[in-house]
């Protein structure tokens, strides 16, 4: 019998090592796996490379991980959301590296990493500073940039419901990067508000098939960044 459930977020992230590359789902607060991120803060791994579309807001979740000094580098498309002060301060102080990647290229690089595609040519960023220094090539007379697949050691994502095989469905725009990130790391950890036995999900409606998922943690009432921030919360 296959059962990918872990008893807690703490157990699920216990083996994240110093220097690990960690993909973290979410676009803004939608899909941000706050409980897994907080467990990672407690766990203490440092020197992390974080791949995530944003850098968190306030003093919780991803912003709290950054504030705790655990992140060496961020691979990101938009690190200055309204309400984001932790990353900008660290960046200006030279305490964190940034690899800025256009959002669609970030998504496609993660997908490629998970799909065994070593590299691909995209028109995005050709002729711009983000294309500089990269190999380019013309297809049908149009310049394209060569971009490489991206992989991680761990992926932390948030689902609406998962089953014991690791099949996952998401909630609305919380889906965003999770399906690609699930495919692109050695160990994918999902926190889900509901966890059901295999066989209860509609096989036609599963978004992330279980083969991409290693660990499932039940987090019944996941916190939201905006609610925590309104309450003035900080972590730890």
């Amino acid at each position: 019998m296959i059962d990918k459930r872990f008893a807690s977020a703490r157990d699920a992230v216990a083996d994240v090592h110093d220097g690990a590359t960690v993909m973290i789902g979410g676009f803004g607060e939608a899909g941000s796996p706050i409980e897994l991120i907080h467990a990672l803060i407690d766990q203490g791994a440092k020197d992390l490379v974080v791949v995530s579309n944003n850098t968190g807001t306030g003093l919780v979740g991803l912003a709290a991980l950054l504030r705790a000094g655990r992140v060496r580098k961020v691979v990101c498309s938009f690190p200055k959301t309204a309400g984001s002060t932790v990353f900008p301060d660290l960046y200006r102080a030279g305490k964190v590296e940034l690899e800025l990647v256009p959002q669609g290229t970030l998504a496609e690089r993660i997908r490629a990493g998970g799909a065994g595609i070593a590299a691909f040519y995209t028109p995005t960023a050709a002729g711009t500073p983000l294309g500089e220094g990269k190999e380019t090539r013309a297809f049908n007379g149009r310049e394209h940039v060569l971009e490489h697949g991206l992989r991680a050691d761990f992926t932390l994502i948030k689902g609406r419901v998962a089953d014991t095989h690791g099949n996952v469905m998401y909630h609305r725009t919380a889906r965003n990067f999770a399906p690609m990130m699930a495919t692109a790391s050695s160990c994918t950890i999902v926190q889900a508000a509901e966890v059901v036995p295999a066989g209860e999900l509609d096989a036609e409606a599963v978004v992330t098939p279980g083969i991409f998922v290693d660990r499932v943690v039940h987090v019944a009432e996941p916190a939201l960044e905006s609610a925590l921030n309104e309450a003035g919360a900080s972590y730890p």
Partner: protein
Amino acid sequence: MSAAPKDRAADAAPAVGWSRDGIAERVAQDIPSGSYVNLGIGIPELVARFVPGGRTLVYHTENGLLGMGPSPAAGQGDPELINAGKRRVSMMPGAAFFDQATSFAMIRGGHLDLSVLGAMQVAANGDLANWSTGADDAIPAVGGAMDLVAGVKRVFVMTTHVTKEGTPKLVERCTYPLTGRGVVTRIYSDLAVVDVTPRGFELLELAPGVSYEFVKERTGAPLLRDRMRQQGP
């Protein structure tokens, strides 16, 4: 779609030309029914308010929703049903959710008919700069801007004709870091509608009460007017 983020009061009395709403209304006139449209964060979002009755547009937000509807009242809505500006929105009948790879396949693959974006600078060759001033202390952030301009069939720019300091935004060559090369189709400013053509900027229409000379003085590159409409709107 959703409220403009700031100083709506400024709309009340434009010194000359179209107000912000006026520009949005003018853009909206040029979008055919049935179009799949991505409205950039901020001012371009206003366009949705002015779509003429009887036309149906389908709004795409690059964080993973097609068929986006208006923002709910403050404090209402679902914090995980948001747009690319990270504000809460709603869904229209026929909506669909998808992941980022699919969302940008729509963008990069040429499936969207139109994107309306803000601008810092637009050059006469269609180059666009709208993501960074390149200042040393700026936090660089690009989001989906480079993908949108690289992939969407037509890119409209919606902008004030000059900066707050009075510097032209329509220029011979962009000095800010580029978002994309030769990507802008048309510019809607507070003063005029300007096409980007192989010959450079071409005036298509003047805002009410604005003269060609007035616009030309505030444009940082030659402004042709052969194709200007004979009648104003």
